[in-house]
């Protein structure tokens, strides 16, 4: 056991050394290659040099200087693309309390925009991106090499970026920025306009019209400034020019049939180059999606029942029951209708991504179509199919190497190449090993964390208060977290010498998110973090007397 670990460490250090010093070239040989661009190669080689695919084929010549991997028993796919995430965006500093009109601009997001926060299409995701392994390791280990990433605040979420999941700097990671403007049909925080869905649409419409006008006036003024009042230099409206001119796509977050129809109507009204994200009920409007040539970034965060059984509860509506039954069929129906789509995690976990992709296949989606939805289709929708999405000579060397079936239950991502950089996976432990190597010893001392705590959670933009009720029995933790969003019971709660951790799910905006909570208790003070697909959120509080 120990010796195997040392071997691993040596390999890892070795590859790091090679990687940083000379490794311009790799070759994967004897592997099954799913090129996506053409036929699968049952046994072939891929040569990587300078971050690009130099050669691929059954008889591709392996250069002498390449570091060679024997790919026997492995399958190589184009690097997987998660077509919508918020990966790499650090949670912005807490803003002012919700409520009341917008006070002075918060220090973290100073802006001289004429528009309230949430109506600022000029916001650039790339400005919020942080490089660094901590941000990307988990999703890359799951097999993803590339993501589309954008924040999820406000009506205009801002301009997204496509990034490769490796690099010491944001500039090196970016494949395309900006990619698209992102819109969510939501309301602004507080009581300002718009605070209802009615106002959301009229505010969007007015801004689009104002942007069209500003663009016209600026052209007039540039042509002849004499005798004409100088038009505003309004960066919020100016950020909409490429959207209105059709040079920048607009990703509209829409899951229900109603939302998708509204998104398509808006796209038609302003001739937007629209992309639907979410698309849970997209199959119901597949004909319109096809007719308007609108692709879908389809969420693989499928709805499932989270509520426990209760004799007091009303039976769930047929609508809800049907939705959960129908969602896994969406991908196949879109494929049959000729609607272009790519998969995204949709705020769910990467394991749900693969499990539900495979569920989509069980429900009629061709397997190669499922693979395309995480490779080439995504690259096409992101406008990057000339450099990503297939294994072809000259393309970016993003590769995902798998032992087993990528859509099967038993699979291991063994290697991931991002921009030609190798990331080797640690084999998952076969069984959860006990610390002492099998012989259970005395229980380690654990912290004392039980009790009820009033906590405040610093969600970007608002402070959410709640009650964390922790019941401790030795190293086992049970209880609930209660907030305005509802009550989330503690799952897999553990107490260690340092503190506690547990996982849970919260429902927000109709979607279920998995969260992971860890924290410490000192005296009557509690503090820690909540990890969610949207980012990491700190919380703190005190024990109730």
């Amino acid at each position, binding site marked *: 056991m120990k010796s195997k670990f040392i071997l691993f460490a040596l390999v890892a250090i070795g590859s790091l050394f090679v990687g940083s010093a000379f490794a311009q070239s790799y070759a994967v040989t004897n592997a099954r290659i799913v090129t996506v661009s053409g036929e699968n190669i049952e046994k072939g080689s891929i040569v990587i040099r300078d971050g690009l695919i130099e050669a691929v084929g059954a008889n591709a010549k392996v250069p002498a200087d390449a570091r060679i991997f024997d790919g026997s028993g492995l399958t190589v796919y184009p690097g997987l693309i998660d077509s919508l995430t918020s990966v790499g965006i650090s949670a912005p500093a807490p803003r002012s309390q*919700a*409520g*009341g*009109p917008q006070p002075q601009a918060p220090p973290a997001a100073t802006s001289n925009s004429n528009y309230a926060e949430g109506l600022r299409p000029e916001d650039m995701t790339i400005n919020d991106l942080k490089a660094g392994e901590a941000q990307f390791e988990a999703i890359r280990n799951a097999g993803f090499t590339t993501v589309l990433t954008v924040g999820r605040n406000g009506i205009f979420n801002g301009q997204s970026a496509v990034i490769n999941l490796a690099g010491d700097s944001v500039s090196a990671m970016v494949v395309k920025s900006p990619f698209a403007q992102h819109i969510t049909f939501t309301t602004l925080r507080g*009581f*300002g*306009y*718009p*605070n*209802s*869905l*009615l*106002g959301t*649409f*009229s505010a969007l*419409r*007015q801004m689009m*019209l*104002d942007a069209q*006008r500003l663009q*016209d006036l600026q052209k*007039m003024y540039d042509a002849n400034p004499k*005798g*004409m*009042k100088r038009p505003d230099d309004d960066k919020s409206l100016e950020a909409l020019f490429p959207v209105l001119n059709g040079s920048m796509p607009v990703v509209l977050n829409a899951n229900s*049939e*109603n939302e998708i*129809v*509204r998104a398509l109507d808006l796209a038609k009204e302003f001739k937007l180059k629209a992309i639907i994200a979410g698309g849970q009920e997209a199959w119901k409007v597949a004909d319109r999606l096809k007719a308007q040539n609108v692709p879908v970034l389809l969420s693989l965060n*499928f*709805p*499932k*029942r*989270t*509520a*426990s*059984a*209760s004799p*007091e*509860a*009303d*039976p*769930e*509506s*047929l*609508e809800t*029951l*049907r939705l*959960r*039954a129908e*969602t*896994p069929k969406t991908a196949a129906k879109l494929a049959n209708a000729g609607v272009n789509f790519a998969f995204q995690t949709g705020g769910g976990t990467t394991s749900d991504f693969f499990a539900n992709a495979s569920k989509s296949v069980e429900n009629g989606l061709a397997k190669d179509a499922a693979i395309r939805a995480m490779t080439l289709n995504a690259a096409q929708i992101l406008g990057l199919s000339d450099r990503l999405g297939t294994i072809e000579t000259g393309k970016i060397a993003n590769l995902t190497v798998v032992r087993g079936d990528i859509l099967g239950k038993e699979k291991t991502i063994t290697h991931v190449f991002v921009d030609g950089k190798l990331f080797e996976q640690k084999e998952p432990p076969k069984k959860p090993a006990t610390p002492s190597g099998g012989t259970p010893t005395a229980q380690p001392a654990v912290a004392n964390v039980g009790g009820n705590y009033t906590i405040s959670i610093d969600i970007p933009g608002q402070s959410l208060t709640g009650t964390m009720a922790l019941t401790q029995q030795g190293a086992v933790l049970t209880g609930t977290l209660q907030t305005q969003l*509802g*009550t*989330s*019971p*503690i*799952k897999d709660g553990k107490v260690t010498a340092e503190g506690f951790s547990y996982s849970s*799910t919260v*429902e927000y905006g109709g979607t279920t998110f998995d969260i992971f909570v860890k924290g410490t208790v000192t005296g009557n003070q509690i503090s820690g973090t909540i990890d969610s697909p949207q980012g990491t959120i700190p919380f703190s509080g005190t024990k109730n007397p």
Partner: protein
Amino acid sequence: MRKLFVFLLMISIVSISPAIVFAQSKTEVLVKNATVMTAAKGTLENTDILIQNGKITKIGKNLKAAANAQIFDASGKFVTPGIVDAHSHTMLDAINEGSFSVTSMTNVRDVLNPHDIAIYRALAGGVTSANLLHGSANSIGGQNSTVKFKYGKPVEDFVIADAPPGIKFAMGENVKRSNFQIQGQTPRYPRTRMGVVETMRDAFLRAKDYKQAWDDYKAKKTKVPPRKDLELEPLVEILEGKRLVHAHGYRSDEHLNLLLLADEFGFKVATLQHGLEAYKIAPEIAKRGTGVSIFADYWGYKLEAYDAIPYNAAILWKNGVLVSINSDSDERMRRLNIDAAKVMKYGNVPEEEALKMITFNPAKQLGIDKRTGSIEVGKDADLVIWSEHPFSPYARVETTMIEGEVYFDRNKDIAKRAELEKERTELEKLDANKAPGSGGTPPKVPGEKRIADRDDADQTDGGNR
């Protein structure tokens, strides 16, 4: 007991889904041998109605239809025009944009939900058309949608394309926010009834300036095109007589204020909505050709709703005011026929006039009377077949059709229930629909039922009425 019955009825209707809409192709339809209450030309016994391409083409005895025509034998049954509800918030995913007191830029068309189960329940009560209004939180609220309840069709099919556009106005307690405080929100202008009128006047003055700016530009007096302002455009349409004003209010002094404001700016108010005190100023309303859309006998739920009398409809009608009876409620919408019957009791309004108050009159108020609201040749075949006289509390809707297509059929509904139960049983077996083995989130247990007469229930409606 009655409550229990209503509850059971609601539950049974809950389970009906959009999947069962009994639509058929637009071939000929013949309704045979009915007592036809035309709401225009009296009641006709043993009469047939022939429908071709969704329109009523013949009304008479022993009519012949094509061999493949769909036949409804209505012997011993009553047929009325589809009910028109001149005040509803059904189908709306958002009702109030409560930020500003003038939100004429909003339009309920943007937030229509064609899957709202309340639509199906309304059809089961004989309603075929409705005026979907923004809420009453603002002096000038959002633009309306006039729809037919074509449940199961895409949302664009609901909207009556040739209905004149409208807009919601509101005065009184909801606008000045007398009865509720929004936690954390800075109090909003206007806070008094005089402030409400001033807010409206200010908006119209701005609209006039706006129109002037565009007129100047079109006349090439200015070089730069003015900004297209979504708030002021609909107000200009009001001034030009192209948009109907539906004004929520209770007190007669306030209604008069609005009528005088309309005189000042030269437009006509299409309807006073609620108008519980309208009987006090019936001649002033009649003189201006303004309609009134009221509750039959619903009152006392807030201070400004105390001076109501159930004779309101009768007095207005006798003074020549165009009166309709509305629901403003998904629940009351299902039994507007009974509300119409009440105006016969209070003030002896004749039967046909009472029926008109839920059919032809609201259709006129909404400007859709050329299409619907009465049973006449040339009109859309929006018809309801009742088991008994529609003003009987025992009357049930058997069939509701819009433009000759059946959207509610009681027998088919009943027949479908077992099938739906079976579907539910099957769906509940799916993993995704099973409760998690351990540690799930707490299930939603039934909350308190909404009780229409209770003030605190209003809060959840965003302060409408």
